[in-house]
């Protein structure tokens, strides 16, 4: 692996991990919102 390839790989990995985590949080937010709506309907 050359230095330039390693540099690109490292920066891509950082962004993929951070954006992946943001997507995971958004998914969990959506699920909680749905559950809150269900609870309001049932109470």
């Amino acid at each position: 692996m050359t230095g330039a390839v390693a540099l690109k790989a490292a920066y891509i990995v950082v962004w993929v991990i951070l954006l992946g985590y943001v997507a995971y949080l958004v998914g969990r937010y959506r699920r909680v919102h749905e559950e809150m709506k269900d609870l309001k309907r049932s109470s």
Partner: protein
Amino acid sequence: MKPLNLLFVVITLGLLGFSTYQALFVAPTEQTMGEVQRIFYYHVPSAWVAGLCFFVNFLASVAYLVKRSSNADALAAASAEVGVVFCTIVLITGPIWGRPVWGIWWTWDARLTTTLVLWLIYVSYLILRRFASGSQTQTLAAVLAIFGFVDVPIVYMSIRWFRTQHPSPVIAGGANSGLDPIMLHAFFWNLLAFTCVGIILVMARYRLQKMENQVEAEHAELALQGGVR
């Protein structure tokens, strides 16, 4: 999202763009390692944010044990999870940097090993929180967090205490250490940007944890009233 929070997110995104530009195009190329040294501008700030998150987790865990506050517990959960995300970045970017420079992906030296142990401690903390049931889970998690935090200063000091494969500290590392002023400038922009990203992620995860706690409490209340479908 509140306007102030939105403004903070927009400023952070601008900072991230600017700091990445500084790292890739403004900072000079390091003479020995070449281009690959620029991983430093993402690798070290990620380690800083991970350490900061674990410190917040430690403080929140102590606060939980003293006050039994659900807010402290939510902050502990949020900071641990975000800390693991940044620690994962450190553990992946490190070997990517090490391969062209050292010729190996991994070695069991003090810094690398203690960082891996740190990651394992906080992953086990998250697993405990996720899968343990019963009223003592939060207390057990807080105790694990307090003992787990002992590894953070060990990770920090490992390259000062031992001669390792990992380079000696270039910042606050003593007489023969230091960075070119332009490199230092780029580094501090990245440190600031990553710290802001860490704060946003912890705030978002904290809010999510509180919403999940609220849903759980409402489910329990409905179950007590016999209103569960």
